[in-house]
């Protein structure tokens, strides 16, 4: 089979579909088969002319480093994010406005090195709401960090808070030693039920420095080495639009009857989740959540997936058809007594509110679904098309059961599949959460994309939303 020709075909059709797909916001249903047939956003939306983000995976905000002190300057600001059904939601968040960045949700992923002194400066630039309520104080707490000091601002229950600009322009400075590597949340410590609902949270990643373990280790442990090009953050949260509207319009905030309508990964709902980082049509939601791997050949290092739950609800989360190796929780390795390995294979794991989990992931082609073109292929029966649903006549299914190959699809169905890759849903199995305002199929759902091995000759690259080479 000619991989390049197939790619060209897919792209041409993708371009043809663009306007229609944008209009219907990528409505999606799946059909069951050997793999799932899923609608995909157009592949032909042009990438931003230039951006400093990588296309998929973690986007680190590194702050400024002086000696061993790393400083992040954040501001609490408000903005809007958009949902796949077209709704816009008013949000609060932590933003790097001093560095010239606009509003974003969630807060920037702060990355630091173990042993550094982390300084986080926070100013309050929330808008004055309608009515007489005034501007909320804001603050940051760092669950999982010890000895966090806070200076400036005014005293709150948990920590010091920055009052609104209209009262006393003030800055709070938090400082702590990044003593242990791992995945952590940072989040509001002021009226948290309101401010976390409004979006005031983000991820903090501390990379190891001890024992000669480099940045491609999650912890100071040889077993946690991962492929640096395949490091992913999946930060979960929920949104009750009524509460956000109340805050935006200056009404009373009452979470007593809270009922979330949107369920987010990295501030996006499916299918926006699987778009690349920093796509231009989601200017305030820069972080994508697609997890892309290639089959391991034995030498390949695993991907690292950092789960965080910034929401209030617990979310049982799993990747279809696969297990992950859960190695750490809340920034601490799972160890047996004596330092032995207590990591575990895990399918569904409830990511509890406020928790983080680190998982290593490899996709092993044990059944040889990616044979060389000249090899004999295992006979596979795929469901008849009568039993498959191709909503809007668009699918992610390649038409072939083999990884790296394409097959025939019904006339009129456009495949968004680029290189014969596989897609597996990776989602909250609390299935009322894979909706966008009660409409399936959306919400707290991302995809695992398994690209064919390089040996099949596809160009190697990972950016989907530009005419680059998306097959590794």
């Amino acid at each position, binding site marked *: 089979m000619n991989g390049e020709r197939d790619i060209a075909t897919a792209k041409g059709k993708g371009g043809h579909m663009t306007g229609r797909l944008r209009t219907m916001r990528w409505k999606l249903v799946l059909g069951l088969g050997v793999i799932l047939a899923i609608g995909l956003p157009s592949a032909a939306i042009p990438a931003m002319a230039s951006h400093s983000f990588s296309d998929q995976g973690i986007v680190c905000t590194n702050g400024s480093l002086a000696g061993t002190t790393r400083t992040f300057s954040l501001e609490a600001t408000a903005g809007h994010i958009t949902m796949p059904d077209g709704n816009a939601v008013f949000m609060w968040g932590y933003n790097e406005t001093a560095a010239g960045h606009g509003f974003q949700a969630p807060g920037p992923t702060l990355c630091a090195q173990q042993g550094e002194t982390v300084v986080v400066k926070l100013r309050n630039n929330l808008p004055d709401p309608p009515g007489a309520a005034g501007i909320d104080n804001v603050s940051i707490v760092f669950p999982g960090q*010890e000895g966090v000091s806070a200076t400036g601002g005014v005293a709150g229950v948990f920590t010091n808070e920055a009052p609104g600009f209209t009262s006393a322009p003030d800055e709070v400075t938090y400082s702590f030693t990044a003593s242990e590597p791992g995945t952590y949340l940072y989040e509001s410590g002021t009226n948290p*039920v309101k401010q976390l609902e409004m979006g005031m949270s983000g991820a903090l990643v501390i990379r190891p420095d001890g024992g000669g373990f480099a940045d491609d280790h999650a912890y100071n442990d040889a077993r946690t080495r991962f492929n640096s090009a395949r490091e992913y953050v999946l930060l979960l949260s929920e949104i009750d639009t009524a509460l956000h509207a109340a805050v935006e319009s200056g009404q009373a905030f009452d979470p007593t009857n809270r009922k979330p309508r949107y369920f987010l990964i990295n501030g996006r709902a499916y299918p926006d989740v699987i778009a690349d980082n920093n796509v231009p049509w989601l200017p305030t939601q820069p972080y994508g959540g697609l997890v892309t791997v290639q089959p391991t050949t034995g030498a390949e290092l695993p991907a690292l997936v950092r789960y965080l739950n910034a929401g209030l609800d617990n979310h049982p989360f799993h990747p279809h058809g696969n297990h992950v190796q859960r190695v750490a*929780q*809340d920034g601490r390795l799972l160890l047996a007594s004596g330092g032995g390995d207590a990591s575990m294979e895990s399918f569904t794991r409830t990511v509890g509110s406020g928790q983080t989990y680190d998982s290593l992931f490899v996709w092993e082609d044990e059944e040889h679904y990616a044979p060389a073109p000249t090899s004999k292929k295992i006979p596979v029966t795929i469901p008849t098309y009568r039993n498959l649903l191709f909503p809007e006549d668009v699918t992610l299914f390649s038409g072939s059961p083999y990884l790296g190959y394409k097959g025939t699809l019904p006339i009129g169905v456009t495949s968004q599949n680029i290189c014969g890759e596989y897609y597996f849903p990776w989602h909250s199995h609390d299935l009322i959460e894979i909706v966008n305002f009660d409409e399936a199929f959306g919400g707290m759902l991302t995809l695992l994309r398994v690209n064919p091995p390089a040996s099949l000759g596809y160009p190697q690259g990972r950016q989907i939303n530009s005419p680059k080479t998306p097959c590794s």
Partner: protein
Amino acid sequence: MRSGAKKVARPGLMLLAIAALAVTIPGWGSADIGAPSVAQSAVPASASTPAAVRGVQLAAAATVTVDLCALAGTKTMPDGSSVPIWGFALDGNPGAEGCGAAAAGLPGPVLGIDTLGIAAGDTVVVNFENQLSQAVSLAFPGQPLAPDTTGVAAGVWPLGSKTYTFIANTGTFLYQAGTNVTTQVPMGLYGALVVNATTGAYGTGTAFDKQAVLVLSEVDPYLNAAPLTFNLLDYHPKFWLINGQGFDPSGATLNPAVSAAAGQKVLLRYLNAGLEHHTMLLLGSHERLIAKDAGVMKNPYDAVAETIPAGATMDAIVTIPSGAVTGSKLWLYNRQLHLDDGSAPFTPDGGMMASVAVT
């Protein structure tokens, strides 16, 4: 106790029992109970245990008798309102019919702490008297005794009674109503049972200096107001409680729940007596999870936040960080963020939250 029950009558020590039975048990929020000590003296095991010997453990393989009542009462909620409850209490009139001055608790007394201490292997004899208007049985999940499917009939005089006997397993357990549970448990018929190991919470490697029992639960006042007709599908809790109390930011309620110095180990015994799952987050330190449902984990792990499912218990040990400043607090709160006292308009000023004070 009803007279004639198979039980040796003993001196009542009524006043002390009453003191220990106030609905808001003084010192409960600050259960600074040190590591269990083994007393070799033959103190009679009685429900009406004097404060001086409460929590004190008898010699190994002793028999510990607890006189327990189920009765109706009221409970002041964090917003100041009063709700009807059904609760357990230590019998204020042990050895005779009626519960004396016992007042229903939500939760009930901590067996093993508000009574004489209970050690693994002890024979626990619970003489149970029912003063409620419907049949009640006792369930001790995690303890070796057959479920009681009949219970003690509605409390019409002469009151019914029943004796439950089991040989205690180590750890942190709930005890609760085993009859008509969808009504009786949310009405308040639950409590904690603490069974001590010879060393530490569960033996070697689980040593602790201080401990706190944290019974998590919720109250929907509509259920409590009409327990016989309430439809549990409408359950929508308004009050979020630890040991029957909501956090009071301006007072000392649950603030602190326990105090300890830097370097000391604090055992947090979480019990979820509610109908909802509760994720509890500790701010300022990790906690080491050592047991779930009183089952010791082979590979304990460190966590910031962990979910205690409805009906479950969990034991965690917090080592107060060496650099912790005296007077500072490690905050402990429900990460579903039920942090209000139920009053309207909503204000974030209470709920399922407590602190660990650094001394």
